[in-house]
């Protein structure tokens, strides 16, 4: 497994930075209601089509689970069909190997410019850095990815990579990269700015020798890659260059086109609220005789990077994920911080599960705890992944491996002892109730503590309302005596 460049151990510190970043906070506050409104619209259209979310989710979950139950078999079928259609299939144990395979292929083929459409696996593999180091120029062509590439940042969201950027920030990046003076921009200028990026990217679309895309799904029965996009860049990347590389994870398989159609009813609606995305491409094999476009060579690079290790275990449900982003779009923690706080490739609830699993439990200790347990994620997941349960499973795994800090373990032991010994517990709560009351100040709105030495974190941003100085059980015992 490779967790190259993971900063997930610094979640807490990064969270503090993100909370203090007022520009970021503004961008997130603006985006959150838009994201939730989109899914709401998607669910309304599902209902208008006479489809029930719970039933669709059960069907989608069953399709994904069927693949995972016999993943090796489906992969063999996929490989045979893809090869029969004229493609090559390469296997990579981890991200580093995937990057090496692609760089070697590019070098063999004399590639100088690579256009890319969105692929999160490319982030797992650190592919852009590997290509650049080999003297090959990668160009991100998804608008959001293009923006974060200009900013030299990783994406902060799996389907909206630049959601953390404001229009002013994008304008500054464009002005510098495109060699023009900066202008005042509003949201009305977005189409104009997108068009500007299009004009710049056109040159690269035409010049590129290799296109690299991800795949939303791999279809076993036809050996195809399915691509779900909105900007059209995916088509340019996969049809114009003479070489097309599909880089994706081994878990992205679905058995049949029929299954793909079922999943397509729920994927765009969960992600962007659309009934269907602007473009849906099914890419099979290479350019055939008489075709006007299409690659002369198609290579699938299918990556494990920790996935096979999850099969058959407690965390297998995570492999059902279809990368819609609904979990992060409905996560209070994600929208408090944005995606970069999470420190590796995947943010939000799905990222808090995947990062420790793919990069090592000990390298992402905070992430399984970076959840209020609200289950807003689990309730919107279109493939029924019980995200809070999986986060909880990771917490138990941390405990089982002795990875929790000694102070926390000691506190838990003392508290656990007290909770099992009611007499001592009563005595302590009696004292604690008095102590808390004594610490508090009275005013019109009640009694409260403004600075609490035992839990200073709580009172850093909040008061602590306190009770009357006598616990329930103390008062109840007194009443019984009367």
């Amino acid at each position, binding site marked *: 497994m490779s967790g190259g460049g993971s900063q997930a151990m610094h979640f807490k510190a990064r969270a503090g930075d993100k909370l203090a970043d007022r520009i970021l906070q503004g961008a997130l506050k603006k985006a959150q209601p838009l994201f939730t409104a989109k899914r709401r619209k998607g669910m309304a259209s599902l209902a208008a089509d006479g489809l029930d979310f719970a039933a669709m989710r059960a069907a989608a979950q069953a399709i994904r689970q069927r693949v995972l139950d016999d993943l090796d078999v489906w992969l063999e079928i996929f490989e045979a069909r893809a090869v029969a259609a004229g493609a090559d299939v390469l296997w990579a144990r981890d991200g580093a190997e995937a990057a090496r395979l692609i760089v070697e292929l590019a070098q063999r083929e004399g590639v100088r410019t690579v256009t890319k459409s969105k692929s999160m696996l490319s982030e797992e593999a650190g592919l852009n850095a590997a290509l650049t180091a080999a003297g090959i120029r990668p160009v991100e062509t998804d608008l959001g990815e293009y923006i974060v590439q200009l900013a030299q940042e990783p994406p902060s969201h799996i389907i909206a990579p630049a959601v953390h950027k404001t229009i002013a920030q994008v304008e500054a990046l464009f002005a510098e990269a495109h060699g023009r003076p900066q202008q005042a921009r509003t949201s009305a200028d977005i189409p104009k700015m997108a068009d500007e990026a299009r004009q710049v990217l056109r040159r690269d679309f035409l010049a590129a020798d290799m296109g690299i895309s991800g795949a939303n799904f791999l279809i076993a029965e036809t050996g195809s890659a399915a691509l779900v996009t909105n900007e059209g860049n995916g088509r340019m990347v996969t049809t114009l260059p003479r070489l097309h590389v599909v880089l994706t994870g081994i878990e992205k398989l679905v058995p049949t086109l029929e299954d793909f159609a079922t999943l397509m009813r729920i994927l765009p609606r969960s992600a962007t609220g659309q009934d269907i995305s602007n473009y849906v491409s099914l890419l099979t094999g290479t350019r055939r005789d008489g075709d006007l476009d299409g690659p002369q060579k198609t290579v699938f690079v299918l990556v494990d990077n920790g996935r096979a290790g999850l099969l058959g275990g407690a965390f297998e449900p995570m492999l059902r994920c279809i990368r819609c982003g609904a979990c992060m779009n409905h996560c209070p923690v994600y929208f408090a911080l944005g995606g970069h706080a999470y420190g590796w490739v995947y943010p939000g609830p799905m990222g808090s599960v995947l990062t420790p699993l793919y990069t090592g439990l000990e390298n992402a200790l905070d992430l399984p*705890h970076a959840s209020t347990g609200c289950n807003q994620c689990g309730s919107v997941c279109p493939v029924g992944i019980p995200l809070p349960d999986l986060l909880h499973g990771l917490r138990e795994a941390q405990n089982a491996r002795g990875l929790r800090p000694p102070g926390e373990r000691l506190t*838990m032991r003392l508290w656990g002892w007290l909770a099992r010994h009611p007499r001592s517990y009563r005595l302590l709560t009696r004292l604690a109730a008095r102590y808390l009351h004594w610490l508090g100040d009275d005013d019109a*709105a009640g009694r409260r503590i403004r600075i609490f030495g035992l839990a200073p974190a709580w009172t*850093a*941003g909040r*008061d602590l309302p306190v009770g009357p100085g*006598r616990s329930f059980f103390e008062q109840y015992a007194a009443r019984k005596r009367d």
Partner: protein
Amino acid sequence: MRVALYVTCLVDLMRPAIGFAALRLIEACGCDVVVPPAQTCCGQPAWSAGNRPLAIELARKAIGELENYDAIVVPSGSCADQIRNVYPQLLADQPAWAERARRVAGNCRELTTFLHEMLRSTAEIPDFPGEFAGRATYHDACKGLRALGIKEQPRELLARVRGLTLHEMDECEACCGFGGAFSVRFADVSTRIVDDKCAAIARTGADAVIGGDLGCLLNIEGRLRRLGDETTRVLHIAEVLAGGDES
């Protein structure tokens, strides 16, 4: 009907009035209420921290104390979820305990769910004594809403309170950012989340925000006060329904 009141550790320590209000409400339904004397904490903090062995020990302790009643009522969706949904899961593979855990889980009700069921099944229950002159808004606590399906119950109960008008806030189902240990471990993130909740409450112009879980209420009240709001009352639904400040 013999009912055990599970007070919860937070109510015991931080706001006993909720416990006494719950007690009066259950009695008003014609039940005999017992407060099992050895109860401490349901063990959710241990479970939530990933400490399964301790969570199991505390589950067994609570089951032993709660199994001889017709119903167990808890003025918290979060603790009720622990007893109803987590206990059976924790003890599923322990033959001596699995059935006992399931029985206790089946008898356990969050307070508003219990009151709502009682009102539906018995015609003779008089109105609850609580009165509230003013506008109120209701915060749906996460565990209650998403794990126990508590949505209409508190609203139907509040609709019976004289003088109270309910004005829903935006995103009333969104988390307030409490999350137990989360509120201390990531206090700054928690505070950022509760800011959205406070803003939504303020937009309703409500005189009071009402909820069914003291954890959320301490978080919301603590932040409202820190932001300088000295007037919006933050109340547990038991306090509103039972009326009359005691203790």
